[in-house]
């Protein structure tokens, strides 16, 4: 065990830094070619990097003033593209990975549906095989970046007579294909829209866009969500991004609010939690490097990180008093190197109710933990067994 982070004069760091000095404005393709987009992936995609090298590259990308690759094309880099290494054909790897990892083709996840976000396995969008195509019909919702993506990772039901989980498959579809319609959803922040509805009306998807085999959709989706949970549990308040407790304490000291004993105590609690989340994130990185698979442990961290982020932003908002209720007035010092909308305290606060909802609600995460890590009995799900089609009684129609 060794908590020492790579030092400023670490030789590998100097190498990376030199590369960025030679490439002050690197294109995505240059970054990808250098192996800096997914350093921990095997070659030729990444550098087979160990934890230290991964952290060094993260640092140096930040230092060069560039956004983290995971924030440029998050769905591909955090969640889905890795599935192509294990389940994709060589043709799929060659077609999809280079543009995804070069930031040239944005990806989005077509998972949630209006009938039920948490109960992903009950989804209704169908993909019916017709010759060398599948025809997709249905509706997706809460799709981040649908409007800017070229590729959608779709989970759809290929076999309605199988049980709810067994009948699902994954596809890589073109978001500009005929029949795909994207409609933005305005969220409660009132700022730029983050989410979309996606309507899929008889979208024809070539059969070679199937990822893995028919029926593997549930397993693949779960793996991808777990990786996402890992990515989202860094100490930043919003999905691991945005202000951290360190930023909060700094701002409270700067504004003098730290002198209020109640604020001081809350800030200390948040600071301690934030540091522990940071340690857990580092450990997860070590585990990933040691090829321990990203499992329900990621759910632990997301379970901890999401309410931590909410409480952190809540305190920042409270100390602003009435002034914090006026939109657009940023009266609380921004974190250093603010680059993302999430770095704005005000936006992050109004966005924060989402973090215990997205990518597994807090309730679902606790179920996963209780059942998979502690071995407690599973929740009752009368629709889990038997043909999915039999569970589609009309009285089960959702309220919204």
């Amino acid at each position, binding site marked *: 065990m060794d908590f020492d982070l790579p030092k400023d004069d670490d030789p590998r760091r100097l190498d990376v830094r030199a590369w960025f000095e030679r490439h002050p404005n690197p294109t995505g393709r240059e970054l990808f070619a250098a192996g800096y987009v997914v350093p921990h992936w095997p070659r030729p995609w990444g550098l087979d990097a160990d934890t230290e090298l991964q952290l060094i590259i993260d640092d140096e990308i930040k230092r060069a003033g560039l956004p983290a690759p995971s924030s440029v094309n998050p769905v591909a880099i955090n969640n889905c593209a890795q599935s192509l290494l294990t389940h994709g054909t060589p043709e799929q790897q060659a077609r999809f990975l280079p543009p995804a990892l070069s930031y040239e083709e944005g990806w989005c996840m077509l998972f949630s549906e209006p009938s039920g976000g948490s109960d992903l396995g009950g989804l209704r969008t169908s993909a019916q095989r017709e010759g060398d195509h599948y025809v997709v019909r249905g509706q997706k919702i809460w799709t981040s970046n649908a409007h800017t993506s070229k590729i959608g990772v779709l989970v759809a039901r290929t076999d309605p007579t199988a049980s709810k989980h067994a009948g699902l498959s994954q596809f890589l579809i073109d978001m500009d294909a005929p029949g795909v319609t994207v409609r933005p959803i305005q969220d409660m922040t009132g700022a730029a829209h983050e989410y979309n509805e996606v309507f899929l009306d008889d979208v024809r998807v070539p059969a070679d866009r199937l990822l893995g085999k028919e029926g593997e959709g549930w397993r693949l989706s779960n793996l991808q969500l777990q990786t996402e949970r890992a990515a989202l549990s860094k100490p930043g308040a919003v999905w691991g991004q945005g202000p951290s407790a360190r930023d909060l304490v700094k701002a409270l000291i700067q504004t003098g609010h730290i002198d209020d004993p109640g604020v001081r105590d809350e800030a200390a609690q948040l600071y301690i939690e934030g540091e522990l989340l940071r340690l857990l994130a580092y450990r997860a990185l070590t585990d990933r490097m040691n090829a321990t698979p990203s499992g329900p442990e990621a759910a632990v961290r997301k379970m901890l990180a999401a309410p931590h982020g909410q409480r952190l932003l809540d305190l920042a908002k409270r100390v602003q008093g009435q002034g914090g209720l006026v*939109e657009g007035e940023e009266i609380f010092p921004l974190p250093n190197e603010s680059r993302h909308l999430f770095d704005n305290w005000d936006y992050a606060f109004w966005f924060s*109710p989402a973090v215990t909802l997205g990518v597994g609600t807090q309730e679902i995460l606790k179920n996963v933990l209780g059942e998979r890590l502690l071995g407690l009995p599973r929740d009752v799900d009368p629709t889990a067994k038997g043909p999915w089609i039999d569970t589609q009684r009309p009285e089960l129609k*959702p309220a919204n």
Partner: protein
Amino acid sequence: MNFALSDDHRMLRDSARAFLDEEVNLQPLLKRGATVEQVDYLGMWGKIAELGWPSLIVPEAYQGLGMSCLDLAMILQEMGRALLPCPISGALAGVWSILKGGSEAQKERLLPMAVTGDLKLALAVCDADGTCDGPASDARATADGDDWRLNGSKAFVVDAAAADMIVVAAENGGRRGLYLVDATAAGVEIELLRWRDTTRQLCNVRFANASAELIAADDAEIWPWIKDRLLLVLSAENAGGLQKVLEMSTEYAKQRMAFGRPIGANQAIKHGLAETFGLVECSNAAVLYAAWMLSEAQPSASLAATMAKAYTSDAYRKATHQNIQVFGAIGFTWEMTNHLYFKRARANAEMLGGTAELRSHVIDLLMREAA
């Protein structure tokens, strides 16, 4: 002694609810950029004036109905439940200011107009840093013969843009007093704030040598009396909204299916809502108690009002957050009313002192009692 609501109070409450259910439609607010203007903010004033709500707390001597804070609380809770967009909060604050601070002549001149709805009032008491307790103030009053002149500014003024006249807390000679300005007079500038709670209108007001009338030269004895009532208004709104939000969440939890059954079958949801039920019960008790104490001018009325605001603010914040969590992602959209309640709860919690400040004041009051 009787801790149950009287039939009269029930009737008052039920008729207010029936009226608001019929008249308030928040749908137009559920579009980004929409403001209270889109939901008949001023039209609503006319309607409630017809019902006589602005006259409730005005004594009969000034043509009002002379009802008590407890009577008023019945209606305030319903306004909070409906998130009624209407300049009634400002009006109440203005009326109380004149009632407590004004001369007999001022009351006779102004209150009958307030009763009919022809005079809309507002109270400008907060400074830019959010403090509302005197004597320091961002606004200063200076004598100009028999007249007075105001300079400086006030912040977070509720319903100022709709008001015909504004009562302003301004400093003169180390004391804070109350002064009345015409909202349209020269030297009065009103700026709408982009207040997150879009069901309400808050403003900053700036004064450049604006002509004003003296209400009371020193508000040290007056402001606490007014503030207790304003705390009651916020508390009652909180309690009413809280009740509504519990109903929304519960209804949704019964209908929304996941994993083959309503989500409300899950203890995670069920127990959370049971806890909120407890918050509702306590909030209602807190509000009715404070309202009764104020009605009866009991010595502990201030304590009761402070407790009610502190308790209901925390409860309302908690429940409105839970309301989004129960609805899931759909509850996070601008198209649903969930965020309106969430924002109202956040905003109310900061008005007239945050909960930590109020709780500290509770202990002050108890120590004073003990001493």
